[in-house]
């Protein structure tokens, strides 16, 4: 038996290659069903996300793995209708313990484009569920994927690899949540000034918190109305900007103005009118819409794009510092998992050979018996043969169970050795 993974990811292949190879959930299920139809004894899981396409395979026997002229890259490319030569050098291939280590790293977010992101764990679980539904998983990939999920959870719980927001818009929302209680967001008013893409992205994060009122203003009323309709917000006139500044608790500013639109004096007057109620200003416009000294006013929390990016970089750096600890967990679990898989891979052929040998003995003994008792009818012969089979199954059940149990504990090698010696099962 052999375990291998072939695939390409954001580091090895550009998006043009990845998008040609990518599968949706249904497509992945269909692909591995096709593979299983060609090789019924194989196990397969196809993991396809926007950043990677990977095929995990556990082949049925050593002979199949070593002697079949089968190339998984070739198979995947032909399935997707791509010439292998075009993309072969974009693929990586890991076998054995390295394949295990790779999946554990992937599931933990160590191999992700955004280090430590947790979405990949859900995608790994989805890929495994799809394969289970397609009937293409077995003892090897079941253990492998369950261990990958366990490793990811351990990494997330025991390291800071996934802590801290790592996108500018989510950092902006986190700043807002440090000023306002997220549970009280329904009482807050959000004002979007301008119609920049980043502003809308930040707005999308904020909407998840359920603000009570959303206002959109723009020099162009048409653009304000267009943005407002996308977000079920109110488009309000730009001429009365100060009025909206007074009402808003959270301001996202993203205009294309060449000069700041609000300075300290103007905003101090706004603060007087709002009776110094706290306000968070996310100024992601470049050039900035609010002068820097607006942030010096009491109860004003002003963040520009550089502030948000610095915090994001600090969060990323903090994640980077956790990589060593995360890798140590992954390495240890990969070794443990590989020991279990190796045992599983070795156990299956031994049990199968033992059964073959006992089958052979049973058949010989039955032939001898039937030769000595020619008066037996076919029905009687069948009943005797059935009894012999049941006897064999019952006798083999106990050692097979013991082997499985020892495999769970990772301490069954001596049993396999003993079985091989006792029954001369070595090949």
């Amino acid at each position: 038996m052999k375990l291998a993974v072939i695939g390409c990811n954001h580091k090895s292949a550009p998006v043009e290659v990845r998008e040609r190879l990518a599968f949706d959930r249904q497509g992945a299920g269909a692909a591995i069903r096709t593979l299983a139809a060609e090789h019924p004894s194989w196990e397969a899981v196809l993991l396809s996300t926007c950043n990677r396409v990977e095929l995990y395979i556990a082949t049925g026997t050593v002979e199949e793995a070593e002697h079949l002229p089968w190339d998984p890259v070739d198979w995947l490319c032909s399935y997707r209708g791509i010439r292998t030569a075009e993309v072969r050098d974009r693929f990586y291939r890991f076998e054995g313990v390295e394949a295990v280590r790779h999946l554990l790293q992937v599931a933990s977010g160590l191999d992700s484009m955004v280090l430590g992101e947790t979405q990949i764990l859900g995608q790994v679980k989805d890929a495994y569920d799809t394969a289970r539904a397609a009937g293409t998983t077995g003892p090897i990939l079941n253990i492998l994927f369950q261990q990958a999920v366990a490793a990811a959870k351990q990494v997330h719980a025991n390291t800071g690899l996934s802590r801290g927001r790592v996108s500018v818009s989510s950092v902006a929302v986190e700043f807002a949540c440090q000023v306002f209680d997220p549970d009280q967001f329904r009482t807050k008013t959000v004002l979007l000034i301008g119609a920049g893409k980043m502003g809308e992205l930040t707005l999308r994060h904020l909407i998840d918190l359920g603000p009570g009122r959303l206002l959109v203003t723009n020099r162009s009323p048409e653009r304000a109305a267009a943005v407002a309709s996308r977000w079920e917000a109110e488009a309000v006139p730009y001429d009365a900007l100060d009025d909206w500044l007074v009402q808003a608790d959270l301001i996202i500013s993203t205009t294309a103005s060449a000069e700041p639109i609000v300075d300290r004096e103007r905003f101090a007057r706004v603060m007087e009118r709002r009776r110094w109620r706290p306000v968070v200003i996310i100024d992601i416009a470049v050039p900035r819409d609010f002068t820097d000294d607006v942030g010096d006013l009491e109860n004003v929390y002003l963040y520009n794009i550089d502030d948000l990016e610095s915090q994001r970089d600090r969060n990323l750096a903090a994640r980077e510092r956790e990589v060593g600890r995360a890798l140590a967990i992954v390495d240890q679990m990969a070794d443990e998992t590989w020991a279990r898989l190796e045992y599983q891979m070795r156990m299956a052929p031994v049990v199968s050979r033992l059964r073959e040998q006992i089958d052979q003995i049973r058949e010989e003994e039955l032939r001898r018996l039937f030769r000595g008792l020619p008066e037996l009818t076919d029905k009687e012969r069948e009943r005797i043969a059935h009894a012999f089979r049941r006897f064999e199954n019952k006798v083999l059940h106990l050692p097979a169970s013991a082997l499985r149990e020892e495999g769970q504990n990772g301490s069954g090698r001596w049993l396999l050795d003993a079985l091989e010696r006792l029954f001369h099962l070595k090949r």
Partner: protein
Amino acid sequence: MTLENVRFFCFAASYTTALGLYFAADRFGLPWRRLLSIGFVVAGLLAQLIYMGYRYEGGVPPLSTLFEVLLVVIASLALGFIVLEVEYPDRAFGAFLLPTIVALTVAAALVGEDRGRALPEGIWRAWVVLHATLLLIGALSVSISFLCGVMYLVQVRRLKRKELASAGWKLPSLETLERWTHTSLVIGFPLLTIGLGIGFAIALALRPGQTTLGTLADPKVVLAVLTWIVLGVVVLVHRDPKFRGRRVAYLTMIAFLLLAITTVGVEVLVPSWHQSLPGGWS
């Protein structure tokens, strides 16, 4: 070793160790910091409760002296620390609660164990107990508002410096801290007012030879009245949006410091007729 040997030092050392471990977070990693400091605080609290139990059996009931009052406050804060650390593991409540617990333990050590006196007999006993209980709950509320005020200032400082706290060192939002400060003040101020009023009535009744002016001129009474006025101002300005934010937090801290001086400082440093009253009430 029997339980009778549990001394003040046992829980004082536990709380101090918990404080040290809490701030040694980076060396031990976050889960270890929390587990170890919670463990030491649980051990300290158990030792303290055993110690208080033996003092009660020895004839010194809870709240009967300033020392006993401080023990109750320390135990309440230790319990609060355990609950908050378990409930909100990513928040840095311990960074504020543990130093307060240790500071109060030092204050209790300065006040000393042997200042207990018998409670007055008859009807005054109930009034004295009510006076002490109201002041205790009021002081606890003001302590909570002080802690919230400190957290508020730390949070403002971080946000003005455009920094987010790392995991395990987060604080509640400014809005939440402001609400907690206000709620604890609104609860604490009336209780302190009634408690002080009862205390003044007790003083007049139990010191018949003294004039009202003589009673009022006592440093402890002067400071108590001053604290009450500052707290009243804090409660009033808290209602005015113009004074919200840092100003209220600073005022709350001043009120707490005055309260600390009135209760512990005067007890330790200045002679007061208060100490000669039955019970030595704070």
